[in-house]
């Protein structure tokens, strides 16, 4: 208890968003008071709303548009211990030309790899990675001891700055769920601020920071909402549901609750934050439900790569099969897409 009270007065990093919203006296105590003052989530209502949004019927031309949009919003991902430079090169090849039989297929938004694979991804992308290139593909790197986040601050920061130095455009960081669940919000907050600073490039620009909440470990919708606020206040450009290594990963209700925070933040400050559901989205049909949810919650303007992404690996193949079905009029099969 004494420790709690001592720490409560500790000041936390003076992130500008938090200063604006919470006020000048930015301490562990004021941060906690703010986060715990956020109204709770009506879980039943949230799930019912998500289920209702999932019943929309999207057909023909709307479906074709939705499928292309899903591809454009995809972070094509490989995050395996067994990843090799060759695997990353074939991932990049698929990112650039998702369907060699149909060159009208759009490119994905980014490839998402572990930090040490960033140089291989950058090299394989070549001119497709240049600023202003048509159909530019970003390189996203997971950092901060992904997926557990269990490492010292210095390791997490050098993990991040290494990836940025190697050419990563986007950093997917994990929050310290242990600290969050024990109520040490200030520690989580400071860490995000520090990682954001580590995203700074020599020319003064920043790599985009996606904050992974790992909602599967946060247990309640209230925690998801609180963590979303925390991630945004600390300076995250995107809030992302999961690492994909924990079940449950992205679900529609969880994503909906995060979108609601983003909507509220936009109303409060006029600033647009991105959302990235990741993990467990394997079917086009599910992905379309996410598009509907985004359009109905924050608006259609969010359906662009700067503000919404899917973190997925097998989703792309299913979208390609659906695309082939729309083009040819017959059902396609797994033999007509690559084995990743």
């Amino acid at each position, binding site marked *: 208890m004494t420790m709690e009270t001592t720490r409560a007065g500790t000041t936390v990093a003076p992130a500008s968003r938090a200063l604006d919203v919470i006020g000048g006296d930015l301490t562990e105590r004021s941060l906690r008071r703010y986060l715990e003052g956020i109204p709770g989530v009506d879980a039943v209502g949230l799930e019912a709303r998500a289920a209702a949004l999932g019943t929309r019927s999207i057909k023909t031309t709307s479906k074709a548009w939705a499928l292309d949009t899903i591809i454009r919003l995809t972070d094509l991902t490989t995050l395996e211990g067994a990843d090799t430079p060759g695997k990353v090169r074939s991932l990049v090849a698929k990112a650039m030309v998702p369907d060699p039989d149909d060159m009208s297929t759009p490119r994905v938004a980014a490839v998402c790899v572990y930090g040490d694979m960033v140089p291989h991804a950058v090299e394989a992308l070549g001119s497709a990675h240049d600023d202003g290139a048509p159909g530019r593909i970003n390189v996203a790197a997971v950092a901060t001891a992904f997926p557990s986040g269990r490492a010292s601050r210095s390791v997490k920061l050098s993990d991040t700055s290494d990836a940025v130095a190697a050419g990563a455009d986007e950093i997917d960081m994990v929050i310290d769920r242990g600290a969050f669940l024990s109520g040490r919000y200030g520690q989580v907050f400071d860490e995000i601020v520090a990682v954001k600073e580590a995203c700074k490039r020599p020319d003064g620009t920043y790599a985009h920071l996606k904050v992974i909440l790992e909602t599967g470990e946060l247990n309640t919708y209230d925690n998801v909402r609180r963590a979303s606020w925390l991630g945004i206040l600390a300076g995250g450009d995107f809030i992302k549901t999961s690492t994909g290594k924990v079940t449950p990963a992205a679900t529609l209700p969880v994503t909906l609750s995060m979108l609601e925070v983003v909507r509220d933040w936009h109303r409060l400050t006029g600033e647009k934050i991105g959302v990235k559901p990741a993990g467990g989205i394997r079917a086009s049909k599910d992905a379309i439900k996410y598009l509907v949810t985004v359009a109905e919650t924050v608006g259609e303007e969010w359906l662009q790569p700067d503000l919404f992404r899917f973190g997925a690996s097998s989703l792309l193949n299913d979208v390609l099969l659906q695309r082939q079905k729309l083009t040819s009029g*017959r*059902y*396609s*099969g*797994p*033999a*007509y897409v690559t084995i990743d």
Partner: protein
Amino acid sequence: MSRLAVPKTYKLYVGGKFIRSESGRVYEVATTKGSFSVSSVNAAKASRKDARDAVVAARAAVSGWSGTTGYNRGQVLYRIAEILDGRRAQFAEEIAAFEGVSVSTATAQVDEAIDLWVWYAGWADKYVQVAGNGNAVSGPFFNLSVPEPTGVVAVIAPQGAGVPGSLLGFVRAVAPVLVSGNTAVVIPSERAPLAALSLGEVFATSDVPAGVVNILSGSPAEIAPWLAAHADVNALDLLGAGELEWVDLQIAAADTLKRVLPPEQGPDAGAPSLDRITFFTETKTVWHTKGLL
């Protein structure tokens, strides 16, 4: 006081589960004789999306079913005969009521179907020896050709309620497909689908893995074109498609290089033969060096 009849809901059999059509549709199948407990029943009417789901289920079952040994597949097919034998009376009653034949004729059809399962079960660990070959080549190599299952086979079972009968026709079409390790999506007789749908219950209780046989009652004219054009179907058995525009089906199937068996008519349609087994196989040839001492 007479007891209320409890009519059975005849549902599709897809992926080892008895499901209603995703479309919610049913169609009426009327008895031709008054001996059955009700005068007509509703059978599920499959849609193209049911066909799509059935192909997914069949594809998922290919590796497991084709991966079992021929001996093991034979045991499972024999088990079908055993379970079917235990339910002869039920099948005879359904066939008699819905095909308009006498109970003794119906029983004879059931018996023939049972015997046919046993006959095809025997082939499961033998057809490779007959259809495969050790080829003579001019060089120090063993050169072996072996038949392997082609994958997912779409089957249109004989449609007439008469010869060879709804149950026997179904078994004649499906059994040879299964012998080598293929999985099947089958459209049974539209007019008399009940024996086939009840046979689904036999599959479900006789060690046949889920998805190996999928049964879609309904209109072949509606579903068959989707199966014929489906890129994930490897072969098409048009045995009972004589009344359809089957040349169109053949053309649709050619787009994705499917093997296609043409329709047959009359009492000998789909008569048991080794050719029906080997038609749904692909030949794999292996070269291997002979050891030099």
